[in-house]
């Protein structure tokens, strides 16, 4: 990694860290924290799906494992939440490796892999709903005890900063991956697995490394979720909602790019919140509109939103704004011609 690889991430972290200074409203901080947690889950998906081309439809399996381990160990056994959080990440990674081992070993790809991951997440959901120690259908409440030593903070701002630090760490890790041998081999497997094997890429090992890292990141998101909202049940932890959001965010923002999941998560949650706020009278209508907006965003995406913005920004001359607009126009017509 060079300085050029790192500074946009640090800049993003620095700017985002200023938010609690200006914003004190609880709802807005809630929104920001939730979006960042989603960023983390989505970055996890992005490593496996975006860089590795292995589309998982069951990242809830990792999110839920991270969340439940964080919660159960402290509620049932009184373990320190920081320890349980790390244990959650570790166990999520293990679950990731195991699911990867079972499915990649037997050569599952594409939609078959997606279906198997979905099945695993569903099995976990049903099991966690049935057994005693997860609180079953009643759910699990983490007792309120707002001390920093207890991974609970009196002000939302502090929690926000902790989550932000982890998101920045995840971005740096993703950037490092992108620049590494493993990253290059992962992308090669995505583009053409046979050809990758022919030039010496151990496809199974590469995919297993990716799913383990991916699961750890999404598991961390789950742990943070549990620690922030202090309540879990099986439909939150292992529900399909998180599998869907974890894959939608990178796809909207640009799968296989470092900032794609961040941009996607912000777009996704802004859309969701905006529709919820604007049309509240008919129950469920916000979800309908949200759904329609999602279809539009997915149907007409600026391909790889993140890299698109970055290229435009780099070629942007502030004195000649018109050039910027013309360039986009020319780009569009060139794209049309190519089709």
């Amino acid at each position: 990694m060079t300085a050029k690889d790192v500074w946009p991430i640090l800049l993003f972290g620095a700017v985002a860290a200023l938010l609690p200074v200006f914003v004190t409203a609880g709802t807005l901080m809630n929104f920001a924290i939730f979006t960042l947690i989603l960023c983390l889950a989505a970055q996890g998906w992005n490593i496996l799906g975006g860089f590795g081309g292995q589309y998982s439809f069951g990242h809830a399996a990792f999110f839920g494992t991270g969340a439940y381990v964080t919660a159960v160990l402290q509620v049932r056994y009184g373990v320190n939440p920081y320890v349980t959080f790390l244990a959650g990440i570790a166990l999520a990674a293990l679950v990731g490796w195991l699911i990867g081992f079972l499915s990649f070993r037997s050569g599952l790809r594409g939609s078959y892999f997606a279906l198997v991951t979905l099945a695993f997440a569903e099995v976990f959901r049903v099991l966690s709903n049935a057994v005693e120690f997860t609180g079953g259908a009643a759910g699990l409440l983490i007792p309120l005890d707002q001390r920093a030593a207890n991974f609970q903070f009196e002000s939302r701002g502090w929690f926000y900063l902790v989550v932000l630090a982890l998101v920045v760490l995840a971005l740096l890790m993703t950037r490092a991956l992108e620049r590494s041998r493993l990253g290059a081999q992962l992308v090669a497997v995505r583009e053409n697995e046979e050809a990758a094997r022919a030039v010496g890429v151990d496809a199974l090992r590469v995919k297993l490394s990716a799913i383990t890292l991916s699961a750890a990141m999404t598991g961390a998101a789950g742990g943070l979720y549990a620690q922030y909202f202090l309540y879990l049940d099986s439909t939150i932890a292992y529900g399909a909602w998180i599998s869907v959001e974890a894959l939608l965010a990178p796809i909207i923002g640009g799968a296989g790019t470092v900032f794609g999941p961040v941009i996607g998560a912000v777009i996704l949650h802004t859309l969701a919140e905006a529709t919820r706020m604007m049309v509240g009278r008919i129950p469920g209508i916000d979800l309908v509109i949200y759904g329609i907006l999602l279809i539009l965003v997915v149907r007409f995406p600026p391909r790889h939103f993140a890299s698109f913005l970055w290229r435009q920004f780099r070629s942007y001359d502030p004195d000649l704004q018109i050039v910027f607009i013309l360039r986009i126009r020319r780009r569009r017509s060139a794209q049309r011609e190519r089709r």
Partner: protein
Amino acid sequence: MSFLEVRNVSMRFGGLMAVSDASFDVAEGSITGLIGPNGAGKTTLFAIVSGFQKPTSGQVVWRGAEITARPPHLLAAEGLSRTFQIVQPFAGLSVRENIAVGAFLRHKRRADAIALAEQVAEQVGLTAELDKPAAALTVSGRKRVELGKALATQPKLLLLDEVLAGLNPSEVRDIVPVVRAIRDSGVTVLMIEHVMQAVMNLCESVHVLAQGRIIASGTPAEVVATPAVVEAYLGHGAASRLSGGTHA
């Protein structure tokens, strides 16, 4: 001990004997050709040698050790690399990145891999296209990328599956010296090829495969004069008709 030895390899797909008891050798430092009519089993034989397929019976021995059905990535690490007849570029990546994937095999650091990729690109004549996406290249360009990827793994034995197919005569003329230069740099080459001009030009020895069997081996000139080879390509009785024609 030969460099590469294929011993009595057979490959059965259901009722079809794609390769049947084929044996041949490749000498170290040579360019050896594997020719034969369409459907003779050449590509299947390649898939077996490069570890993509496990033969029904028989052995592949390389530098004294049996390598039958060893996975391709391990073979690549040991210095045996192949190209594909149907080119398999990493379509979304640039030419530089494509070749770098191969270079990463022996170079952990990105800077080293990229440097080697650029060096290999020069060797196969792709320096001008380094930043282009592989998908945007012409057929000839993609064949060069295919060659570059394999070469970047720094192989000792390179298996080329029809790198010249689909190229026009002037493009063939351009690539022939590239292949020869690869051999001169110390890489043994085994190539499947249909373009006889190139085979005659490049190969020191040639094995002819027809209906899964090796029917002739020798220098290119010897092989094309063998009646069985002529018949394999042109049909039963063609050899005598042809020689009859020259006598008449």
